């Protein structure tokens, strides 16, 4: 028993580095200057420019400077950062990262799928080679970063606009909500079938809760309407179930029915988790703070350079 536990702990320890190879600095803003290449004024100016770009175009550029790559290649490191920080808007993947590693003297521009059309490998390579590397070689790292970032902003500007942002919640979710509502109402109605009023209260509360967590339903009136509908549904369900179970004793079939929708609700959750959609949506929702836009789809596009 003890041996098994410690073996499991050992295995967990061994597999841990594979999951989290790199300890990334926390994402605090669009400009993440952990190698202290920028003066505070420049840092603020750059941050402003990037915030403005995102406000106008929805495209999101991130800057990360690090003292060292912790043994990873610059490509691996950049991809890891992009996958965790998810620059760009969800569904558009219109983000890009400029990574500067001081110890390794490496620069990389990692480009999300959405920006590959304008910020091609070729353009990214030229920005690094012709704008950044000469400045870095001249010991003007600050100028190099600022100029490189500005070149990226100029390149990217105009490719997307705020207006073109897709709706945050795809219509497919409505189905899931309906299924969840139906299953919940049936279930609560069955449980409280001998106290119809309680059933109506419970399902009303359930409906309100569901409406609260669903971005599709907004506004107090709509919420009240949903709650009322759920309460009515619960009442009907409870009364129906009570009459059915009183009227006919071995009424197991009727009660088996709500299992159907419940199962399929479970299933749709499973599928989206497999595709990675559910996970990403969840993450984007909970941590939509500084910078993280929920994009981050990248196939390794961009360019690397060395000074």
């Amino acid at each position, binding site marked *: 028993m003890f041996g098994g536990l410690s073996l499991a702990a050992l295995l967990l320890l061994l597999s841990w580095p594979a999951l989290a190879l790199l300890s990334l600095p926390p994402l605090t803003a669009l400009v993440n200057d952990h190698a202290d290449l920028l003066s505070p004024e420049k840092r603020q100016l750059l941050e402003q420019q990037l915030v403005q770009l995102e406000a106008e175009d929805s495209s999101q550029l991130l800057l990360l400077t690090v003292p060292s790559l912790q043994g990873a290649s610059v*490509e691996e490191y950049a*991809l890891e950062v992009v996958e965790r920080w998810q620059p760009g808007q969800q569904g558009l993947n219109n983000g890009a990262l400029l990574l500067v590693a001081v110890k390794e003297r490496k620069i990389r521009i990692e480009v999300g799928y959405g920006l590959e059309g304008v910020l*091609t*490998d*070729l353009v*990214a*390579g*030229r920005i690094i*080679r012709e704008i950044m590397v000469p400045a870095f070689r001249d010991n003007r790292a600050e100028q190099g970063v600022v100029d490189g970032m500005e070149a990226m902003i100029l390149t990217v500007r105009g490719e997307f606009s705020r207006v073109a942002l897709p709706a945050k919640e795809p219509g497919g979710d409505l189905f899931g909500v309906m299924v969840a509502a139906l299953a919940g109402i049936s279930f609560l109605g*069955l449980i409280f079938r001998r106290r119809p009023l309680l059933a109506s209260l419970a399902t009303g509360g359930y409906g309100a809760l569901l409406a609260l967590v669903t971005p599709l339903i907004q506004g107090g009136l709509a919420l009240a309407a949903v709650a009322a509908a759920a309460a009515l549904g619960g009442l009907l369900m409870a009364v129906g179930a009570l009459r059915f*179970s009183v009227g006919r*004793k*071995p*009424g*197991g079939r009727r*009660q*088996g029915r709500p*299992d*159907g929708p*419940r*199962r399929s609700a*479970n*299933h749709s959750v*499973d*599928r989206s988790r*497999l*595709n990675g959609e559910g996970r990403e949506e969840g993450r984007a929702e909970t941590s939509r703070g500084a910078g993280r836009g929920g994009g981050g789809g*990248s*196939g*390794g*596009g*961009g*360019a*690397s350079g060395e000074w």
Partner: protein
Amino acid sequence: MYRTPSLSMIILCILLGLGGCGYNELQVREEGVFKAWADIEANLQRRSDLIPNLVATVKGYAAHEQATLEAVVAARSRASSLQLGPEELSSPAAMEALQAAQGGLTAALSRLMVVVERYPQLKASANFLDLQNQLEGTENRINVARQRYNRAVEIFNSGLRRFPANLTNRYLLQLERKEYFQATPQAGPLPQVNFNGA
């Protein structure tokens, strides 16, 4: 009257059990493998598309390197004549042939890049630098796509062997395990730099 809830619970359990038999999971995972493979093929194609331009540029500066250039062209045509359909992803022989062809192209390209070192003018030309950028970018994309494909294959293959799904697959789906796409371990001899030639 109190028997009915337990009966409904039993039915619930059976239905949930059926949902967990892995039928859908396996199909979704196989689709994931196909999608990841399409990404690899697109990036291999991208690399192949870059080569004529690269060869033409190098030829302009280093016309003497006919043999190296021809080797690249030949390797390219060999590589692009080979493509795997979805059902061939389960065939070790087909995957090995593809890996050999693509590895041959990688080796021919790296030999060309070594040769290029001898031509400072070529190396400094903007056109060549751009092409080199694009080529590196594409190699990186191939690498990323390869890792993602291998991850998808790992998930699919291990899913095939896990308990309820293996029975489902045996009797219902009959999907085959997929082959990994290995990194090319420098196919062919390492490029040699010839210091006294040229």
